[in-house]
């Protein structure tokens, strides 16, 4: 390995620059991995005719300036791959992206495409997050990294519970697929973040629609596909250590991975991560009890050959997340007090301790996979996975129950799937698959609190078929269909007064088993037939433009929370009620993607519209009084919704030039993202709740500028005020000190003011290591985020200085 680096360095040093007069053409592009589009750094391009070698930067880009017109022989090498030779004709400034095949056993080893678009295989709208971005967020969460994609926002509870929102939809409407395995971790909850260690990801693809039918047809928001480190078919050991320290929350994280690959096909992979953070701090106060601690481990062992292979993987994730102390409140009158006071009602000194309210979540995943290629036909794949998720939530409790969990759910999921991928035909690719899921939820009765989610068993059986067709050089067509049969069988105690109050004794007498005290045991069981369909076309106009259109239709069955939940929710002082007679949701989504590459400018525009009939939403239905005081009641109801918007992404190399020593390319790049979404409840003709506000994100990156291997970054994120929100404010009687009651409005609807955050970063690469220094929220701005449930109680976090060290070997 060291020898190779030396050789690369030697090649690099011996590069000859030829400054021919009248020869000012430029050849540039990006070298990427053929499979996942991840940019390959340190790839060598040797131009035989001029005996010049250039190497790709961290983002995979290369640039060969000062070429004369003519045809060149370019030899592309990368340490994981075989040397490849290309003939490239340069008669004007030319962009040539190179796709390198890592798995040298596989079919095509190298392919040249004419633009930099991410996904050429179909018409769906998708964006990929690369290893560099993932590294930037090594100490944060998956949701934070995903929010760097236009059209994706983070729905937060504080700073540790972060859920991805795709085009305004989240939770059960977004599927998260980790290494081919659909994550089953009680994703229905707003306060449940994905139990995935971001550091195991090599790259992440965000698909903004229900087009990834292989992973289920119910992801009407979109699918997030997390891919691990690829497998290399040669004798090598690779690894990486990423460690990070941060000033805000006074903690950090360390993650190490090691991968052993053998030419024989055997490989082993391991990743370990530990993260510890104390209380976060807003500009003016400590956010008490917001610390967290996470352990994660991933192991894989397998045998990988072109014709057949198998693997077994185990992943473990364990996290303890503090919830802002001030957000645990008694009743609606307490909520008024919290909102009106403008700062948290409990502010203690900084601590690493995590007390109730808190969450402790554990996730185990075991996955076995085998595949076999059938000559002249395609590839057959079988997957089995087992997932076990335990979620504990702790409230502030009294007496002997103090320190005991209020919620203790065990979710066990088995999945078995078989796929057949047919790729032997020239212009067609087809995939057929069947899969089955069996899931058991068992809440622990020892909590002494009535179960939020009941005991249930559910089964899902589905099949899908999808087809890609390359009509000609310009046109690509795709279509897919999926059917699932879903069954959920719950056993639940209702309070008899609630059961009758909702009229279920009239509507569902068949579910009643018997009464015990003032509770009634019921067996609500439901079946749903779910259909999904996707069709699209992509048109490559010329080297500079391509356009895609995709129409998808999908069904989502109501999740257990929407059907069965009933109880008091301490975070917002609400009584939340499920609804047994919910229908499946029906979504129709149209995505358009227009993409242009002109010289140093790369622009993508993605307008979309999503019509969701029977959209399930919590609607306030009134106020109920208890011995604790009054609470607003929210019930899941169905409305017709429309979500429409546009995402914009732009990358512009403002200038590029050879640095003074002519060994590297100095570059100033502007990255810009914008997203807008309009959400309307068509039934009540009012805005949808929790729609991400308009946001702009801009970043200037100056690479190799001041001196070699130094990158400087200045970025700004501006979030406008969400002006469209439904008015769910309600009035509640608040007792005063004179024994009177004053009626006060609980202002829970109004969105926070617009804000703008500045971040500064510097990165320096040397040998195989890199040091990054970042300052987030540079000006220590006070702000509150509409999509953060903590906004009712406290400001968001203030300035954070981070230092990160990355070492690759």
């Amino acid at each position: 390995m060291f020898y190779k680096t030396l050789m690369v360095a030697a090649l690099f040093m011996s590069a000859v620059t030829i400054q021919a007069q009248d020869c000012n053409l430029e050849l540039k592009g990006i070298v990427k991995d053929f499979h996942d589009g991840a940019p390959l750094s340190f790839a060598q391009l040797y131009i035989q005719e001029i005996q010049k070698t250039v190497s790709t930067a961290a983002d995979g880009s290369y640039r060969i300036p000062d070429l004369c017109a003519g045809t060149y022989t370019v030899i592309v090498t990368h340490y994981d791959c075989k040397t490849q030779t290309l003939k490239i004709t340069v008669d004007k400034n030319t962009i040539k992206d190179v796709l390198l095949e890592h798995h040298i056993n596989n079919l095509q080893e190298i392919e040249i495409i004419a633009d930099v678009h991410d996904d050429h295989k179909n018409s769906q709208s998708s964006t990929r997050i690369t290893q560099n971005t993932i590294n930037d967020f090594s100490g944060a969460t998956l949701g934070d990294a995903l929010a760097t994609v236009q059209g994706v926002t983070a729905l937060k509870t504080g700073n540790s519970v972060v859920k991805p929102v795709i085009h305004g939809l989240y939770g059960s409407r977004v599927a998260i697929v980790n290494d081919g395995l659909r994550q089953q971790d009680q994703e229905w909850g707003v306060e449940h973040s994905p139990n995935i260690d971001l550091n195991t990801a090599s790259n992440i693809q965000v698909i903004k629609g229900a087009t990834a039918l292989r992973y289920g047809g119910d992801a009407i928001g979109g699918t997030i596909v997390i891919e691990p480190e690829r497998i290399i078919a040669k004798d090598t050991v690779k690894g990486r250590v990423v460690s990070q320290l941060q000033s805000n929350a006074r903690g950090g994280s360390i993650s190490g991975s090691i991968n052993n690959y053998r030419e024989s096909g055997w490989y082993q992979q391991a990743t370990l991560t530990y993260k510890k953070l104390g209380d976060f701090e807003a500009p003016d106060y400590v956010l008490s009890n917001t610390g967290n601690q996470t352990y994660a481990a991933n192991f894989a062992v397998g045998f990988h050959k072109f014709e057949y292979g198998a693997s077994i993987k185990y992943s473990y994730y364990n996290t303890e997340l503090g919830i802002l102390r001030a957000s645990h409140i008694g009743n609606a009158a307490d909520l008024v007090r919290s909102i009106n006071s403008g700062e948290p009602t409990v502010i203690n000194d900084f601590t690493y301790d995590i007390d109730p309210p808190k969450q402790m979540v554990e996730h185990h995943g075991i996955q076995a996979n085998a595949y076999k290629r059938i000559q002249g036909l395609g590839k057959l794949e079988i997957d089995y996975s087992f997932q076990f998720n335990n979620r504990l939530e702790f409230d502030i409790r009294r007496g002997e129950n103090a320190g005991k969990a209020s919620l203790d759910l065990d979710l066990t999921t088995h999945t078995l799937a078989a796929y057949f991928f047919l790729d032997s035909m020239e212009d067609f690719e087809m995939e057929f698959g069947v899969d089955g899921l069996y899931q058991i939820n068992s809440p622990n009765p020892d909590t002494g609190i009535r179960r939020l989610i009941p005991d249930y068993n559910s089964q899902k059986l589905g099949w899908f078929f999808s087809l890609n067709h390359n009509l000609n050089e310009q046109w690509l067509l795709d279509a897919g269909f999926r059917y699932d049969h879903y069954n959920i069988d719950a056993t639940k105690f209702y309070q008899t007064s609630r059961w009758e109050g909702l009229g279920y004794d009239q509507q569902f007498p068949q579910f009643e088993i018997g009464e015990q005290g003032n509770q009634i045991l019921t067996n609500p069981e439901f079946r749903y037939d779910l259909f999904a369909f996707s069709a699209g076309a992509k048109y490559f106009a010329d080297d500079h433009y391509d356009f895609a259109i995709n129409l998808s239709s999908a069904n989502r069955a109501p999740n257990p929370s929407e059907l069965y939940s009933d109880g008091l929710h301490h975070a917002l002082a609400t009584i939340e009620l499920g609804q047994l007679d919910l229908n499946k949701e029906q979504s129709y989504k149209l995505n358009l993607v227009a993409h242009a590459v002109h010289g140093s400018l790369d622009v993508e525009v993605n307008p979309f519209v999503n019509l969701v009939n029977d959209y399930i939403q919590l609607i306030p239905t009134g106020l109920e009084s208890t011995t604790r005081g009054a609470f607003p009641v929210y019930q899941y109801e169905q409305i017709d919704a429309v979500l429409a918007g546009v995402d914009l992404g732009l990358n512009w190399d403002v200038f590029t030039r050879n640095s003074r020593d002519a060994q590297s390319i100095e570059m100033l790049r502007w990255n810009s993202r914008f997203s807008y979404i309009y959400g309307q409840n068509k039934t009540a003709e009012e805005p949808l709740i929790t729609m991400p506000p308009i946001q702009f994100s801009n970043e200037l990156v100056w690479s190799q500028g001041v001196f070699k291997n130094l990158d400087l970054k200045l970025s700004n994120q501006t979030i406008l005020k969400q002006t469209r929100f439904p008015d769910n404010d309600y009035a509640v009687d608040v007792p005063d000190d004179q024994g009177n009651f004053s009626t006060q409005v609980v202002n829970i609807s109004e969105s926070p003011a617009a804000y703008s955050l500045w971040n500064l970063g510097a990165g320096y690469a040397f040998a195989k290591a890199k040091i990054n220094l970042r300052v987030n929220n540079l000006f220590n701005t006070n702000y509150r985020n509409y999509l953060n449930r903590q906004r009712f109680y406290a400001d968001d976090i203030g300035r954070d200085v981070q230092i990160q060290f990355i070492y690759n070997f």
Partner: protein
Amino acid sequence: MRYQILKIAITTVLYCVLVSCSDNDVPQLINEEELITTVEYTLTNDTDATNVVVYKSVDADGSGPEAPTLMTTGTLLANSTYSGTIRFLNESVAPAENITEEVQEESSEHEVFYATSIAGIAITKTDTDSDGNLLGLRTALKTEAPGNGNLTIVLRHEPIKPNDNTLSGAAGETDAQVVYSLIIQ
């Protein structure tokens, strides 16, 4: 090795299909022990032990849809001094759970607040917690002229202690909040 793995996988699937899938036990009933269904404020006339007034609020279904019901027994007399005791009960379980004992045990983390709109009524807390701060499980209530109005009683968990003896100054979270209507004769 590969066959071993396959065997384990198949065994696990079979286990699921044959054992857990047929497992459909009736879940255990949960009666919430911490629930406060009942707040009972008893006033005993200091000069006449037979003059006992009881104010009671009962919410049998806890967080269920039914509102608490209020009951009053006895007559509150003008120009008198009463000793008050408050009890918090969970009557949804049998036998009823006395939550007051827990409040007493964790006295430094609790306080009961009394506020009334009736002029002339003075309520003073006569007990203290383990730190010597006011607790409010025992009170003295003085009446003056006849009249009527409301008495609000609030049990706060983890309030600021000591505090200015007002609800607004005490913070913490509300564990119980009841309003009785008082008639002084």
